[in-house]
């Protein structure tokens, strides 16, 4: 228990902040993923073959390649890419992107591929009559989307999105290879300096379990709230 004391003698406060970091990265990645899903879901559902192809290659490639490889791509390639773009605008100094942004972006792209599939499935499982009814009522395209399609999509998507959240949360452990101090990295540091890896990695496992447990409870509440009318 001494090892977990707060302050200078133990690792309690460090691990607490690391946990907050894990939560922050997961939420950021999830939001980035949603924005990717917002772009690629319509492309996936569109009738244009080219747009379809683009969206399908995104989800297939990302879901077929290990997360760790994607993270290495961003970790080693991110700085180069940003500097290349900056050089077009005439900025030639060295730019370092911090580990949080690289990590959140890498995990976000992965999580976005899964979210895209979830939203596609949800839109497709909405009853066709709903689209027709909206047309008959003479709703504008905007009104049809925001008032009819989106609310139903969200309700149908929540159970599967909770899976995506679990995947995203667990994937953040992989960002530790880039040096961002989240639960896994902090445990690694603590294990190295105390020579007690068994304890710290087991404690990390407990922290992850706690996070998944609590978030599942919260998501279940959301699920109940959004399916009230059914």
């Amino acid at each position: 228990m001494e090892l977990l004391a707060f302050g200078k003698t133990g690792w309690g406060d460090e691990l607490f902040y690391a946990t907050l970091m894990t939560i922050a990265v997961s939420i950021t990645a999830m939001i980035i993923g949603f924005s990717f899903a917002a772009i690629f879901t319509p492309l996936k559902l569109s009738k244009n073959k080219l747009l379809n192809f683009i969206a399908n290659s995104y989800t297939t490639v990302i879901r077929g390649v290990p997360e760790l490889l994607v993270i290495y791509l961003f970790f080693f390639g991110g700085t180069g890419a940003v500097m290349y773009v900056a050089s077009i605008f005439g900025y030639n100094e060295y730019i370092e992107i911090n580990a949080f942004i690289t990590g959140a972006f890498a995990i976000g792209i992965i999580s976005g591929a899964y979210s895209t599939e979830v939203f596609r499935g949800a839109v497709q499982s909405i009853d066709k009559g709903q689209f027709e009814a909206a047309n008959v009522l003479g709703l504008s395209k905007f009104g049809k989307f925001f008032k009819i399609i989106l609310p139903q999509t969200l309700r149908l998507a929540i159970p599967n999105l909770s899976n995506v959240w679990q995947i995203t949360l667990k994937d953040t452990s992989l960002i530790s290879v880039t040096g961002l101090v989240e639960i896994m990295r902090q445990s690694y540091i603590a294990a190295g300096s105390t020579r007690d890896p068994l304890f710290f990695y087991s404690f990390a496992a407990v922290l992850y379990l706690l996070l998944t447990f609590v978030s599942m409870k919260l998501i279940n509440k959301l699920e109940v709230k959004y399916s009230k009318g059914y």
Partner: protein
Amino acid sequence: MDFELMINSFPKLLNAAVITLKLLSVSLIIGLFIGLLFAILRLNKNIIINKFAYGYSYIFRGTPLLVQIFIIYFGLGQIEYLRTTFLWVILKEPYWCAIIAFALNTGAYTSEILRSAFQTIKPGIIEAGQSLGISSKIIFYKIQIPIAIRQSLPAYGNEIILMMKGTSLASTVTIMDLTGVAKYIISTTFKPIEVFIVAGGIYLFMTFIIHNMIKFLEKKYGFNS
């Protein structure tokens, strides 16, 4: 684009892909047995056995694979007693540690897949077996298990692909699998995009093969045929 690097690194990465496939197949075989065992325990009416099996799958599905590998590779070596037993021969090798972690992980997911398959078997099929006077042991081995395996093929196919991606974590414990070699080449040449395209292409090809194999099996053994 450095095409020369892509061509030069291809054979190296292909060799590493063999290690990835070895890790995958060995851990899947062990994991299948673990999964079957725990699926059966889950269906047991004894509440302690039942809860134990549930706890196992909950813990392994609720924590990242990376934590599991680190606990087994770095953590277990710390226990002095283990070092004196024959287990140490296995646990000092990163290769076997990775396989143990993968097998336990995929075992947890497999047990969930098989459990739900067992639970969706229509009771009429079992009753038919009973009324034919077949013993419950044979009903289980000859009727329930084959049906459950058939039913769980699509979900298990997904699990195989997830596990293939999971084997990339072996590179964190010094095993030079496909991701490990890719990382090595990236960090020596600083050409991440080229290496990513080649290594990612090999992974996608393996995903494609696994996907089609499962599709073929589903067609051959599925209910719709």
